[in-house]
Protein backbone atom coordinates (compact mmCIF):
# COMPACT_ATOMS: atom_id res chain seq x y z
CA UNK A 1 0.00 0.00 0.00
CA UNK A 2 2.69 2.40 1.08
CA UNK A 3 4.69 1.38 -1.93
CA UNK A 4 1.91 2.13 -4.38
CA UNK A 5 1.32 5.47 -2.71
CA UNK A 6 4.93 6.34 -3.27
CA UNK A 7 4.69 5.16 -6.85
CA UNK A 8 1.71 7.39 -7.48
CA UNK A 9 3.44 10.36 -5.90
CA UNK A 10 6.43 9.69 -8.11
CA UNK A 11 4.20 9.32 -11.15
CA UNK A 12 2.60 12.65 -10.45
CA UNK A 13 5.96 14.38 -10.06
CA UNK A 14 7.17 12.81 -13.28
CA UNK A 15 4.02 13.94 -15.04
CA UNK A 16 4.49 17.51 -13.77
CA UNK A 17 7.96 17.58 -15.31
CA UNK A 18 6.80 15.98 -18.56
CA UNK A 19 4.01 18.54 -18.99
CA UNK A 20 6.32 21.48 -18.38
CA UNK A 21 8.90 19.93 -20.71
CA UNK A 22 6.33 19.41 -23.46
CA UNK A 23 5.17 23.02 -23.24
CA UNK A 24 8.76 24.24 -23.46
CA UNK A 25 9.62 22.00 -26.40
CA UNK A 26 6.41 22.93 -28.25
CA UNK A 27 7.27 26.61 -27.97
CA UNK A 28 10.86 26.02 -29.16
CA UNK A 29 9.81 23.86 -32.10
CA UNK A 30 7.03 26.16 -33.28
CA UNK A 31 9.40 29.13 -33.02
CA UNK A 32 12.05 27.25 -34.96
CA UNK A 33 9.42 26.47 -37.63
CA UNK A 34 8.70 30.23 -37.72
CA UNK A 35 5.13 29.76 -36.51
CA UNK A 36 4.81 32.86 -34.34
CA UNK A 37 1.06 32.36 -34.01
CA UNK A 38 1.55 29.00 -32.34
CA UNK A 39 4.27 30.32 -30.02
CA UNK A 40 1.77 32.92 -28.85
CA UNK A 41 -0.81 30.17 -28.36
CA UNK A 42 1.62 28.34 -26.09
CA UNK A 43 2.18 31.60 -24.21
CA UNK A 44 -1.60 31.86 -23.87
CA UNK A 45 -1.68 28.37 -22.34
CA UNK A 46 1.12 29.30 -19.96
CA UNK A 47 -0.60 32.52 -18.84
CA UNK A 48 -3.93 30.78 -18.25
CA UNK A 49 -2.01 28.14 -16.34
CA UNK A 50 -0.45 30.79 -14.09
CA UNK A 51 -3.89 32.23 -13.36
CA UNK A 52 -5.14 28.72 -12.62
CA UNK A 53 -2.18 27.89 -10.37
CA UNK A 54 -2.99 31.08 -8.46
CA UNK A 55 -6.67 30.30 -8.02
CA UNK A 56 -5.92 26.66 -7.26
CA UNK A 57 -4.17 27.75 -4.10
CA UNK A 58 -7.38 29.30 -2.78
CA UNK A 59 -9.87 26.97 -4.43
CA UNK A 60 -8.16 23.62 -4.67
CA UNK A 61 -6.11 23.63 -1.49
CA UNK A 62 -8.00 26.15 0.63
CA UNK A 63 -11.52 25.19 -0.45
CA UNK A 64 -12.43 28.82 -1.11
CA UNK A 65 -14.59 28.77 -4.24
CA UNK A 66 -13.92 32.29 -5.50
CA UNK A 67 -16.08 33.31 -8.44
CA UNK A 68 -14.33 36.67 -8.45
CA UNK A 69 -10.73 36.02 -9.46
CA UNK A 70 -11.32 37.80 -12.76
CA UNK A 71 -11.11 41.00 -10.69
CA UNK A 72 -7.44 40.29 -9.97
CA UNK A 73 -6.76 38.98 -13.47
CA UNK A 74 -8.31 42.09 -14.98
CA UNK A 75 -6.70 44.54 -12.59
CA UNK A 76 -3.30 43.03 -13.38
CA UNK A 77 -4.15 43.55 -17.04
CA UNK A 78 -5.33 47.10 -16.53
CA UNK A 79 -2.20 48.04 -14.58
CA UNK A 80 -0.07 46.81 -17.47
CA UNK A 81 -2.32 48.57 -19.99
CA UNK A 82 -2.49 51.86 -18.12
CA UNK A 83 1.28 51.92 -17.58
CA UNK A 84 1.87 51.31 -21.26
CA UNK A 85 -0.61 54.04 -22.20
CA UNK A 86 0.95 56.65 -19.91
CA UNK A 87 4.42 55.66 -21.02
CA UNK A 88 3.61 56.05 -24.69
CA UNK A 89 1.95 59.41 -24.01
CA UNK A 90 4.79 60.42 -21.65
CA UNK A 91 2.23 61.37 -19.00
CA UNK A 92 2.29 60.43 -15.34
CA UNK A 93 -0.15 58.45 -13.20
CA UNK A 94 -2.89 60.06 -11.16
CA UNK A 95 -0.74 60.43 -8.07
CA UNK A 96 2.03 62.11 -10.08
CA UNK A 97 4.02 58.87 -10.23
CA UNK A 98 6.31 58.56 -13.21
CA UNK A 99 5.05 56.06 -15.75
CA UNK A 100 7.14 53.07 -16.64
CA UNK A 101 7.15 50.34 -19.24
CA UNK A 102 9.35 47.98 -17.25
CA UNK A 103 7.48 44.73 -16.52
CA UNK A 104 9.30 44.21 -13.24
CA UNK A 105 8.15 47.57 -11.85
CA UNK A 106 4.65 47.01 -13.20
CA UNK A 107 4.49 43.58 -11.56
CA UNK A 108 5.51 45.17 -8.28
CA UNK A 109 2.50 47.46 -8.63
CA UNK A 110 0.30 44.49 -9.53
CA UNK A 111 1.48 42.64 -6.46
CA UNK A 112 0.83 45.56 -4.14
CA UNK A 113 -2.55 46.54 -5.55
CA UNK A 114 -3.90 42.99 -5.93
CA UNK A 115 -2.70 42.14 -2.43
CA UNK A 116 -4.42 45.17 -0.92
CA UNK A 117 -7.63 44.52 -2.85
CA UNK A 118 -7.61 40.82 -1.98
CA UNK A 119 -7.00 41.69 1.65
CA UNK A 120 -10.04 43.94 1.62
CA UNK A 121 -12.26 41.48 -0.29
CA UNK A 122 -11.02 38.56 1.79
CA UNK A 123 -11.58 40.34 5.09
CA UNK A 124 -15.27 40.70 4.29
CA UNK A 125 -15.88 37.57 2.20
CA UNK A 126 -14.19 35.13 4.56
CA UNK A 127 -16.62 36.10 7.28
CA UNK A 128 -19.05 34.04 5.23
CA UNK A 129 -18.69 30.58 3.74
CA UNK A 130 -20.27 28.25 1.23
CA UNK A 131 -22.66 29.84 -1.23
CA UNK A 132 -22.39 33.23 0.43
CA UNK A 133 -18.64 33.24 -0.20
CA UNK A 134 -19.15 32.35 -3.87
CA UNK A 135 -21.64 35.14 -4.33
CA UNK A 136 -19.87 37.86 -2.43
CA UNK A 137 -16.63 37.28 -4.34
CA UNK A 138 -18.71 37.43 -7.52
CA UNK A 139 -20.29 40.67 -6.35
CA UNK A 140 -16.93 42.30 -5.64
CA UNK A 141 -15.67 41.32 -9.07
CA UNK A 142 -18.81 42.79 -10.63
CA UNK A 143 -18.10 46.04 -8.81
CA UNK A 144 -14.68 46.25 -10.41
CA UNK A 145 -16.17 45.26 -13.77
CA UNK A 146 -18.83 47.96 -13.78
CA UNK A 147 -16.33 50.46 -12.49
CA UNK A 148 -14.03 49.74 -15.42
CA UNK A 149 -16.93 49.97 -17.88
CA UNK A 150 -18.11 53.35 -16.65
CA UNK A 151 -14.63 54.91 -16.38
CA UNK A 152 -14.01 56.52 -19.78
CA UNK A 153 -10.40 57.67 -19.18
CA UNK A 154 -9.09 54.15 -19.62
CA UNK A 155 -11.20 52.99 -22.50
CA UNK A 156 -14.47 52.23 -20.69
CA UNK A 157 -16.43 49.56 -22.50
CA UNK A 158 -14.09 49.54 -25.50
CA UNK A 159 -10.98 48.59 -23.58
CA UNK A 160 -7.48 49.88 -23.94
CA UNK A 161 -5.00 49.17 -26.71
CA UNK A 162 -1.36 48.71 -25.74
CA UNK A 163 0.62 50.31 -28.54
CA UNK A 164 3.82 48.48 -27.68
CA UNK A 165 4.45 45.73 -25.18
CA UNK A 166 6.01 46.60 -21.85
CA UNK A 167 9.71 45.77 -21.67
CA UNK A 168 11.58 43.22 -19.60
CA UNK A 169 14.96 44.83 -18.79
CA UNK A 170 16.75 45.07 -22.13
CA UNK A 171 14.99 42.20 -23.91
CA UNK A 172 12.87 42.50 -27.03
CA UNK A 173 9.46 41.40 -25.73
CA UNK A 174 7.95 41.67 -29.20
CA UNK A 175 9.87 38.54 -30.08
CA UNK A 176 7.45 35.63 -29.51
CA UNK A 177 10.06 33.37 -27.99
CA UNK A 178 11.36 36.01 -25.59
CA UNK A 179 7.83 36.71 -24.43
CA UNK A 180 7.13 33.00 -24.06
CA UNK A 181 10.28 32.55 -21.98
CA UNK A 182 9.21 35.36 -19.64
CA UNK A 183 5.79 33.73 -19.17
CA UNK A 184 7.29 30.29 -18.79
CA UNK A 185 9.74 31.49 -16.13
CA UNK A 186 6.87 33.06 -14.21
CA UNK A 187 4.94 29.79 -14.47
CA UNK A 188 7.91 27.81 -13.15
CA UNK A 189 8.30 30.24 -10.27
CA UNK A 190 4.61 30.10 -9.34
CA UNK A 191 4.47 26.30 -9.57
CA UNK A 192 7.59 26.12 -7.41
CA UNK A 193 6.18 28.66 -4.98
CA UNK A 194 2.87 26.86 -4.60
CA UNK A 195 4.53 23.47 -4.20
CA UNK A 196 6.64 24.98 -1.39
CA UNK A 197 3.57 26.56 0.17
CA UNK A 198 1.57 23.34 0.04
CA UNK A 199 4.36 21.38 1.71
CA UNK A 200 4.96 23.99 4.39
CA UNK A 201 3.37 24.12 7.83
CA UNK A 202 1.16 26.92 6.54
CA UNK A 203 0.04 24.83 3.58
CA UNK A 204 -0.84 21.89 5.77
CA UNK A 205 -2.93 24.16 7.97
CA UNK A 206 -4.61 25.56 4.88
CA UNK A 207 -5.59 22.10 3.67
CA UNK A 208 -6.92 21.17 7.08
CA UNK A 209 -8.93 24.40 7.07
CA UNK A 210 -10.55 23.22 3.85
CA UNK A 211 -11.48 19.86 5.31
CA UNK A 212 -12.43 20.88 8.82
CA UNK A 213 -12.26 24.37 10.31
CA UNK A 214 -12.96 23.16 13.82
CA UNK A 215 -10.22 20.55 13.81
CA UNK A 216 -7.70 23.21 12.87
CA UNK A 217 -8.93 25.49 15.64
CA UNK A 218 -8.62 22.72 18.23
CA UNK A 219 -4.90 22.40 17.56
CA UNK A 220 -4.54 26.09 18.25
CA UNK A 221 -4.46 27.59 14.77
CA UNK A 222 -7.07 30.13 13.76
CA UNK A 223 -8.39 29.25 10.28
CA UNK A 224 -9.35 32.81 9.31
CA UNK A 225 -5.82 34.36 8.99
CA UNK A 226 -4.58 31.22 7.25
CA UNK A 227 -7.35 31.38 4.65
CA UNK A 228 -6.95 35.13 4.24
CA UNK A 229 -3.22 34.81 3.58
CA UNK A 230 -3.80 32.07 1.02
CA UNK A 231 -6.51 34.18 -0.65
CA UNK A 232 -4.12 37.13 -0.96
CA UNK A 233 -1.25 35.05 -2.39
CA UNK A 234 -3.67 33.43 -4.81
CA UNK A 235 -4.95 36.83 -5.97
CA UNK A 236 -1.44 38.17 -6.50
CA UNK A 237 -0.45 35.24 -8.73
CA UNK A 238 -3.63 35.62 -10.78
CA UNK A 239 -2.93 39.36 -11.08
CA UNK A 240 0.52 38.74 -12.53
CA UNK A 241 -1.06 36.39 -15.06
CA UNK A 242 -3.43 39.21 -16.01
CA UNK A 243 -0.54 41.64 -16.58
CA UNK A 244 1.13 39.10 -18.87
CA UNK A 245 -2.16 38.45 -20.69
CA UNK A 246 -2.62 42.15 -21.45
CA UNK A 247 0.90 42.35 -22.86
CA UNK A 248 0.42 39.18 -24.88
CA UNK A 249 -2.72 40.53 -26.58
CA UNK A 250 -1.55 44.17 -26.55
CA UNK A 251 -5.09 44.83 -25.38
CA UNK A 252 -7.03 44.95 -22.16
CA UNK A 253 -10.80 45.21 -21.87
CA UNK A 254 -13.54 44.76 -19.27
CA UNK A 255 -13.94 41.20 -20.63
CA UNK A 256 -10.91 40.30 -18.54
CA UNK A 257 -12.89 41.39 -15.49
CA UNK A 258 -16.15 39.67 -16.43
CA UNK A 259 -17.59 36.86 -14.38
CA UNK A 260 -17.29 34.56 -17.41
CA UNK A 261 -13.54 35.03 -17.03
CA UNK A 262 -13.78 33.99 -13.37
CA UNK A 263 -15.67 30.93 -14.50
CA UNK A 264 -13.05 30.13 -17.11
CA UNK A 265 -10.21 30.28 -14.58
CA UNK A 266 -12.14 27.73 -12.51
CA UNK A 267 -12.60 25.65 -15.66
CA UNK A 268 -8.81 25.48 -16.17
CA UNK A 269 -8.51 23.98 -12.71
CA UNK A 270 -11.43 21.63 -13.03
CA UNK A 271 -10.51 20.19 -16.43
CA UNK A 272 -7.05 19.38 -15.14
CA UNK A 273 -7.86 18.38 -11.60
CA UNK A 274 -8.76 20.38 -8.50
CA UNK A 275 -6.00 20.68 -5.92
CA UNK A 276 -3.32 19.14 -8.14
CA UNK A 277 -0.11 21.00 -8.89
CA UNK A 278 -0.24 20.46 -12.65
CA UNK A 279 -4.03 20.45 -12.84
CA UNK A 280 -4.34 24.03 -14.09
CA UNK A 281 -1.56 23.53 -16.64
CA UNK A 282 -3.26 20.50 -18.17
CA UNK A 283 -6.65 22.19 -17.96
CA UNK A 284 -5.43 25.38 -19.62
CA UNK A 285 -3.85 23.29 -22.39
CA UNK A 286 -7.10 21.44 -23.03
CA UNK A 287 -9.04 24.73 -22.94
CA UNK A 288 -6.81 26.43 -25.52
CA UNK A 289 -6.82 23.30 -27.71
CA UNK A 290 -10.64 23.27 -27.71
CA UNK A 291 -10.72 27.02 -28.32
CA UNK A 292 -8.27 26.85 -31.21
CA UNK A 293 -9.35 23.72 -33.02
CA UNK A 294 -13.09 23.57 -32.45
CA UNK A 295 -13.14 27.37 -32.48
CA UNK A 296 -11.54 27.30 -35.93
CA UNK A 297 -14.32 25.01 -37.08
CA UNK A 298 -17.35 26.75 -35.58
CA UNK A 299 -17.85 30.01 -33.72
CA UNK A 300 -20.07 28.15 -31.28
CA UNK A 301 -17.14 26.24 -29.78
CA UNK A 302 -18.25 27.13 -26.26
CA UNK A 303 -21.17 24.78 -26.74
CA UNK A 304 -18.66 21.95 -26.88
CA UNK A 305 -16.69 23.41 -24.00
CA UNK A 306 -19.92 23.34 -22.00
CA UNK A 307 -20.56 19.71 -22.91
CA UNK A 308 -17.01 18.67 -22.01
CA UNK A 309 -17.25 20.57 -18.75
CA UNK A 310 -20.61 19.03 -17.90
CA UNK A 311 -19.34 15.52 -18.59
CA UNK A 312 -16.22 16.10 -16.50
CA UNK A 313 -18.24 17.46 -13.56
CA UNK A 314 -20.90 14.74 -13.68
CA UNK A 315 -18.90 11.68 -14.62
CA UNK A 316 -15.16 12.34 -14.43
CA UNK A 317 -14.67 14.26 -11.23
CA UNK A 318 -10.94 14.74 -10.74
CA UNK A 319 -10.22 15.84 -14.30
CA UNK A 320 -7.35 14.79 -16.53
CA UNK A 321 -4.90 14.32 -13.65
CA UNK A 322 -7.07 11.61 -12.14
CA UNK A 323 -7.34 9.83 -15.49
CA UNK A 324 -3.57 9.84 -15.92
CA UNK A 325 -2.15 9.29 -12.44
CA UNK A 326 -5.17 8.39 -10.34
CA UNK A 327 -6.58 9.66 -7.05
CA UNK A 328 -5.03 12.61 -5.32
CA UNK A 329 -2.57 11.83 -2.54
CA UNK A 330 -3.34 12.97 0.95
CA UNK A 331 0.11 13.58 2.36
Amino acid at each position, binding site marked *: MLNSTHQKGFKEKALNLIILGLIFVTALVTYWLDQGYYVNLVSRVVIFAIAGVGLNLALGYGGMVSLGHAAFFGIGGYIAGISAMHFSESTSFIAGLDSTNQMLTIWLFVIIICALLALFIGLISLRTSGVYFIMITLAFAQMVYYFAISWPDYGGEDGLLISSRNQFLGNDTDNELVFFLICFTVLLLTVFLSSRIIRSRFGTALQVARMNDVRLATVGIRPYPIKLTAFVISAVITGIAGALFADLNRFVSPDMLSWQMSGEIIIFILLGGVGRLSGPILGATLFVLLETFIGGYTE*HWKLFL*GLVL*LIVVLYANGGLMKMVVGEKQHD
Partner: protein
Amino acid sequence: MTAALFLEQLLNGLQLGMTLFLMSAGLTLVFGVMGLINLAHGSLYMIGAFCCATITNMTGSFLLGLLAGFVGAAIAGLIIEVVVIRKLYDRDHLDQVLATFALILIISEGTSWIFGSSPLYLSIPSWLSGSIPLSFGEDSNSSYPIYRLVIIAIGLIIAYSLYLLITKTRLGMRIRAGESDREMIAALGVNIRVIYSLIFALGAALAGLAGSLVSTLYSVEVGMGEPVLILALVVIVIGGIGSVKGALVASILVGLVDTLGRVFLPNILALFIDNSQVATLSASLASVLVYILMAVILAIRPQGLFPANA
Protein backbone atom coordinates in the same frame (compact mmCIF):
# COMPACT_ATOMS: atom_id res chain seq x y z
CA MET B 1 -36.39 67.64 -9.13
CA THR B 2 -40.13 67.49 -9.05
CA ALA B 3 -42.36 65.16 -7.09
CA ALA B 4 -43.59 63.67 -10.34
CA LEU B 5 -40.06 62.80 -11.43
CA PHE B 6 -39.41 61.21 -8.08
CA LEU B 7 -42.62 59.18 -8.25
CA GLU B 8 -41.79 58.09 -11.78
CA GLN B 9 -38.36 56.84 -10.70
CA LEU B 10 -39.88 55.21 -7.65
CA LEU B 11 -42.23 53.24 -9.90
CA ASN B 12 -39.35 52.35 -12.23
CA GLY B 13 -37.45 51.02 -9.23
CA LEU B 14 -40.47 49.04 -8.14
CA GLN B 15 -40.84 47.57 -11.62
CA LEU B 16 -37.19 46.48 -11.67
CA GLY B 17 -37.72 45.09 -8.19
CA MET B 18 -40.68 43.00 -9.31
CA THR B 19 -38.76 41.62 -12.29
CA LEU B 20 -35.96 40.71 -9.90
CA PHE B 21 -38.43 39.11 -7.52
CA LEU B 22 -39.77 36.82 -10.26
CA MET B 23 -36.16 35.78 -10.95
CA SER B 24 -35.05 35.40 -7.37
CA ALA B 25 -38.12 33.58 -6.01
CA GLY B 26 -37.20 30.43 -7.94
CA LEU B 27 -33.52 30.83 -7.22
CA THR B 28 -34.01 31.13 -3.50
CA LEU B 29 -36.56 28.28 -3.29
CA VAL B 30 -34.26 25.96 -5.21
CA PHE B 31 -31.44 26.82 -2.86
CA GLY B 32 -33.54 26.68 0.28
CA VAL B 33 -35.13 23.34 -0.46
CA MET B 34 -32.54 21.50 -2.56
CA GLY B 35 -29.38 23.27 -1.41
CA LEU B 36 -28.51 23.94 -5.05
CA ILE B 37 -26.88 27.05 -6.45
CA ASN B 38 -28.16 27.43 -10.00
CA LEU B 39 -26.23 29.84 -12.22
CA ALA B 40 -28.27 28.72 -15.24
CA HIS B 41 -31.36 30.46 -13.89
CA GLY B 42 -30.59 33.41 -16.17
CA SER B 43 -30.71 31.06 -19.15
CA LEU B 44 -34.28 30.11 -18.23
CA TYR B 45 -35.13 33.83 -18.21
CA MET B 46 -33.64 34.07 -21.69
CA ILE B 47 -35.54 30.98 -22.86
CA GLY B 48 -38.76 32.55 -21.61
CA ALA B 49 -38.05 35.76 -23.52
CA PHE B 50 -37.22 33.90 -26.73
CA CYS B 51 -40.35 31.73 -26.49
CA CYS B 52 -42.49 34.81 -25.86
CA ALA B 53 -40.98 36.78 -28.74
CA THR B 54 -41.27 33.87 -31.18
CA ILE B 55 -44.85 32.97 -30.33
CA THR B 56 -45.99 36.61 -30.22
CA ASN B 57 -44.49 37.25 -33.63
CA MET B 58 -46.08 34.07 -34.99
CA THR B 59 -49.59 34.47 -33.58
CA GLY B 60 -49.77 38.21 -33.07
CA SER B 61 -51.07 37.68 -29.55
CA PHE B 62 -48.91 38.91 -26.67
CA LEU B 63 -50.97 36.96 -24.14
CA LEU B 64 -50.21 33.71 -25.97
CA GLY B 65 -46.57 34.83 -26.00
CA LEU B 66 -46.56 35.32 -22.24
CA LEU B 67 -48.09 31.88 -21.80
CA ALA B 68 -45.46 30.41 -24.12
CA GLY B 69 -42.68 32.06 -22.12
CA PHE B 70 -44.07 30.71 -18.87
CA VAL B 71 -44.70 27.18 -20.15
CA GLY B 72 -41.61 27.02 -22.35
CA ALA B 73 -39.30 27.91 -19.49
CA ALA B 74 -41.10 25.43 -17.22
CA ILE B 75 -40.58 22.63 -19.73
CA ALA B 76 -36.95 23.61 -20.27
CA GLY B 77 -36.49 23.69 -16.50
CA LEU B 78 -38.04 20.26 -16.10
CA ILE B 79 -35.76 18.77 -18.77
CA ILE B 80 -32.68 20.39 -17.23
CA GLU B 81 -33.65 19.15 -13.78
CA VAL B 82 -34.13 15.57 -14.90
CA VAL B 83 -31.04 15.39 -17.12
CA VAL B 84 -28.48 17.37 -15.11
CA ILE B 85 -29.59 19.16 -11.95
CA ARG B 86 -30.87 16.01 -10.22
CA LYS B 87 -27.33 14.63 -10.16
CA LEU B 88 -26.04 17.73 -8.39
CA TYR B 89 -28.10 17.82 -5.20
CA ASP B 90 -25.57 15.80 -3.24
CA ARG B 91 -22.51 17.45 -4.76
CA ASP B 92 -20.51 20.30 -3.29
CA HIS B 93 -21.02 23.90 -4.37
CA LEU B 94 -18.03 23.88 -6.70
CA ASP B 95 -19.55 21.10 -8.80
CA GLN B 96 -22.89 22.90 -8.82
CA VAL B 97 -21.31 26.17 -9.93
CA LEU B 98 -19.34 24.48 -12.69
CA ALA B 99 -22.14 22.27 -13.99
CA THR B 100 -24.61 25.14 -14.13
CA PHE B 101 -21.92 27.35 -15.70
CA ALA B 102 -21.58 24.63 -18.34
CA LEU B 103 -25.35 24.76 -18.85
CA ILE B 104 -25.12 28.53 -19.47
CA LEU B 105 -22.49 27.93 -22.16
CA ILE B 106 -24.56 25.18 -23.78
CA ILE B 107 -27.89 27.06 -23.68
CA SER B 108 -26.42 30.42 -24.79
CA GLU B 109 -24.45 28.97 -27.68
CA GLY B 110 -27.33 26.68 -28.62
CA THR B 111 -29.72 29.64 -28.72
CA SER B 112 -27.40 31.76 -30.84
CA TRP B 113 -26.98 28.77 -33.15
CA ILE B 114 -30.74 28.51 -33.63
CA PHE B 115 -31.76 32.17 -33.61
CA GLY B 116 -28.60 33.81 -34.92
CA SER B 117 -26.83 36.63 -33.16
CA SER B 118 -29.13 39.53 -34.05
CA PRO B 119 -31.59 40.42 -31.28
CA LEU B 120 -35.37 40.08 -31.53
CA TYR B 121 -37.65 43.01 -30.75
CA LEU B 122 -41.22 43.07 -29.52
CA SER B 123 -43.43 46.07 -29.14
CA ILE B 124 -45.91 46.59 -26.33
CA PRO B 125 -49.37 45.44 -27.46
CA SER B 126 -51.66 48.36 -28.26
CA TRP B 127 -54.11 47.62 -25.44
CA LEU B 128 -51.29 48.02 -22.90
CA SER B 129 -49.36 50.81 -24.54
CA GLY B 130 -51.14 53.81 -23.00
CA SER B 131 -49.99 55.78 -20.02
CA ILE B 132 -51.65 57.33 -17.06
CA PRO B 133 -51.00 60.88 -15.86
CA LEU B 134 -48.88 61.49 -12.79
CA SER B 135 -49.97 65.00 -12.03
CA PHE B 136 -49.48 66.93 -8.86
CA GLY B 137 -50.62 70.26 -10.13
CA GLU B 138 -47.08 71.53 -10.74
CA ASP B 139 -46.64 69.87 -14.14
CA SER B 140 -49.67 68.02 -15.34
CA ASN B 141 -48.10 66.65 -18.53
CA SER B 142 -45.97 63.94 -16.91
CA SER B 143 -47.31 60.42 -17.27
CA TYR B 144 -46.39 56.80 -16.60
CA PRO B 145 -46.69 53.83 -18.99
CA ILE B 146 -49.44 51.38 -18.04
CA TYR B 147 -47.33 48.44 -19.12
CA ARG B 148 -44.80 48.98 -16.34
CA LEU B 149 -47.64 49.23 -13.83
CA VAL B 150 -48.94 45.90 -15.13
CA ILE B 151 -45.52 44.34 -14.44
CA ILE B 152 -45.64 45.67 -10.88
CA ALA B 153 -49.15 44.29 -10.43
CA ILE B 154 -48.21 40.87 -11.81
CA GLY B 155 -45.19 40.75 -9.48
CA LEU B 156 -47.38 41.52 -6.46
CA ILE B 157 -49.98 38.93 -7.51
CA ILE B 158 -47.27 36.29 -7.94
CA ALA B 159 -45.77 37.18 -4.56
CA TYR B 160 -49.14 36.78 -2.88
CA SER B 161 -49.86 33.51 -4.71
CA LEU B 162 -46.48 32.14 -3.67
CA TYR B 163 -47.24 33.09 -0.09
CA LEU B 164 -50.56 31.22 -0.31
CA LEU B 165 -48.95 28.25 -2.05
CA ILE B 166 -46.24 27.87 0.55
CA THR B 167 -48.23 28.52 3.69
CA LYS B 168 -51.74 27.27 2.86
CA THR B 169 -51.50 24.27 0.53
CA ARG B 170 -50.47 20.67 1.00
CA LEU B 171 -47.74 21.07 -1.61
CA GLY B 172 -46.44 24.10 0.28
CA MET B 173 -46.40 22.12 3.48
CA ARG B 174 -44.33 19.44 1.78
CA ILE B 175 -41.97 22.05 0.38
CA ARG B 176 -41.43 23.49 3.85
CA ALA B 177 -40.99 20.00 5.28
CA GLY B 178 -38.45 19.20 2.57
CA GLU B 179 -36.59 22.36 3.47
CA SER B 180 -36.18 21.41 7.09
CA ASP B 181 -35.63 17.66 6.81
CA ARG B 182 -35.57 15.93 3.48
CA GLU B 183 -34.90 12.44 4.83
CA MET B 184 -37.79 12.57 7.26
CA ILE B 185 -40.26 13.63 4.62
CA ALA B 186 -39.04 10.86 2.33
CA ALA B 187 -39.47 8.38 5.19
CA LEU B 188 -43.07 9.57 5.55
CA GLY B 189 -43.74 8.31 2.05
CA VAL B 190 -43.60 11.58 0.11
CA ASN B 191 -41.84 11.34 -3.21
CA ILE B 192 -39.28 14.05 -2.64
CA ARG B 193 -37.86 13.82 -6.16
CA VAL B 194 -41.18 14.82 -7.68
CA ILE B 195 -41.35 17.79 -5.31
CA TYR B 196 -37.82 18.81 -6.29
CA SER B 197 -38.74 18.66 -9.97
CA LEU B 198 -41.90 20.67 -9.37
CA ILE B 199 -40.05 23.37 -7.43
CA PHE B 200 -37.40 23.62 -10.10
CA ALA B 201 -40.00 23.85 -12.88
CA LEU B 202 -41.95 26.46 -10.92
CA GLY B 203 -38.82 28.57 -10.43
CA ALA B 204 -38.01 28.18 -14.11
CA ALA B 205 -41.53 29.22 -15.10
CA LEU B 206 -41.32 32.38 -12.98
CA ALA B 207 -37.95 33.24 -14.53
CA GLY B 208 -39.49 32.63 -17.95
CA LEU B 209 -42.38 34.91 -17.07
CA ALA B 210 -39.96 37.63 -15.99
CA GLY B 211 -38.09 37.27 -19.28
CA SER B 212 -41.36 37.41 -21.26
CA LEU B 213 -42.59 40.50 -19.42
CA VAL B 214 -39.46 42.51 -20.12
CA SER B 215 -39.15 41.27 -23.72
CA THR B 216 -41.15 44.29 -24.85
CA LEU B 217 -38.95 46.71 -22.90
CA TYR B 218 -35.49 45.46 -23.84
CA SER B 219 -34.14 43.57 -26.84
CA VAL B 220 -34.32 39.79 -26.69
CA GLU B 221 -30.82 38.45 -27.20
CA VAL B 222 -28.32 35.86 -26.07
CA GLY B 223 -26.64 36.95 -22.86
CA MET B 224 -29.64 38.96 -21.63
CA GLY B 225 -30.03 36.64 -18.66
CA GLU B 226 -26.67 37.00 -16.97
CA PRO B 227 -26.87 40.63 -15.75
CA VAL B 228 -30.29 39.88 -14.28
CA LEU B 229 -29.03 36.62 -12.80
CA ILE B 230 -26.23 38.41 -10.99
CA LEU B 231 -28.63 41.02 -9.60
CA ALA B 232 -30.94 38.19 -8.53
CA LEU B 233 -28.02 36.51 -6.76
CA VAL B 234 -27.35 39.79 -4.95
CA VAL B 235 -31.04 39.87 -4.03
CA ILE B 236 -31.17 36.40 -2.53
CA VAL B 237 -27.94 36.96 -0.63
CA ILE B 238 -29.28 40.20 0.86
CA GLY B 239 -32.66 38.63 1.58
CA GLY B 240 -31.24 35.50 3.15
CA ILE B 241 -30.85 32.46 0.92
CA GLY B 242 -33.96 30.27 1.00
CA SER B 243 -36.40 32.92 2.18
CA VAL B 244 -39.10 33.99 -0.29
CA LYS B 245 -40.09 36.86 2.00
CA GLY B 246 -36.45 37.95 2.10
CA ALA B 247 -36.34 37.77 -1.69
CA LEU B 248 -39.37 40.05 -1.99
CA VAL B 249 -38.02 42.66 0.42
CA ALA B 250 -34.52 42.54 -1.05
CA SER B 251 -35.83 42.70 -4.64
CA ILE B 252 -37.67 45.91 -3.93
CA LEU B 253 -34.69 47.28 -2.02
CA VAL B 254 -32.24 46.46 -4.81
CA GLY B 255 -34.63 47.71 -7.50
CA LEU B 256 -35.10 51.04 -5.73
CA VAL B 257 -31.44 51.55 -4.79
CA ASP B 258 -30.25 50.77 -8.31
CA THR B 259 -32.81 52.94 -10.09
CA LEU B 260 -32.85 55.89 -7.71
CA GLY B 261 -29.06 55.76 -7.32
CA ARG B 262 -28.50 56.08 -11.06
CA VAL B 263 -30.86 59.05 -11.33
CA PHE B 264 -30.19 60.99 -8.16
CA LEU B 265 -26.62 60.16 -7.14
CA PRO B 266 -25.07 62.61 -9.65
CA ASN B 267 -27.27 65.39 -8.24
CA ILE B 268 -26.45 64.51 -4.65
CA LEU B 269 -22.71 64.27 -5.30
CA ALA B 270 -22.72 67.54 -7.21
CA LEU B 271 -23.90 69.26 -4.03
CA PHE B 272 -20.64 68.31 -2.31
CA ILE B 273 -18.01 68.25 -5.02
CA ASP B 274 -18.09 70.56 -7.96
CA ASN B 275 -15.95 69.56 -10.89
CA SER B 276 -16.09 67.77 -14.19
CA GLN B 277 -14.96 64.44 -12.73
CA VAL B 278 -18.18 64.20 -10.73
CA ALA B 279 -20.23 63.02 -13.68
CA THR B 280 -17.97 60.04 -14.42
CA LEU B 281 -17.38 59.28 -10.77
CA SER B 282 -21.07 59.26 -9.93
CA ALA B 283 -21.89 57.12 -12.94
CA SER B 284 -19.30 54.57 -11.79
CA LEU B 285 -20.49 54.75 -8.22
CA ALA B 286 -24.16 54.40 -9.17
CA SER B 287 -23.48 51.23 -11.11
CA VAL B 288 -21.84 49.55 -8.12
CA LEU B 289 -24.25 50.88 -5.50
CA VAL B 290 -26.17 47.61 -5.11
CA TYR B 291 -22.95 45.68 -4.59
CA ILE B 292 -21.87 48.13 -1.93
CA LEU B 293 -25.29 47.66 -0.31
CA MET B 294 -24.77 43.90 -0.39
CA ALA B 295 -21.28 44.11 1.10
CA VAL B 296 -22.50 46.37 3.91
CA ILE B 297 -25.47 44.15 4.72
CA LEU B 298 -23.34 40.99 4.68
CA ALA B 299 -20.70 42.62 6.85
CA ILE B 300 -23.38 43.37 9.45
CA ARG B 301 -25.58 40.27 8.96
CA PRO B 302 -23.59 37.49 7.23
CA GLN B 303 -26.76 35.40 6.77
CA GLY B 304 -28.78 38.14 5.07
CA LEU B 305 -31.85 40.01 6.29
CA PHE B 306 -34.20 37.06 6.73
CA PRO B 307 -32.13 33.91 7.34
CA ALA B 308 -34.31 30.98 6.27
CA ASN B 309 -32.94 28.28 8.53
CA ALA B 310 -32.03 30.35 11.55
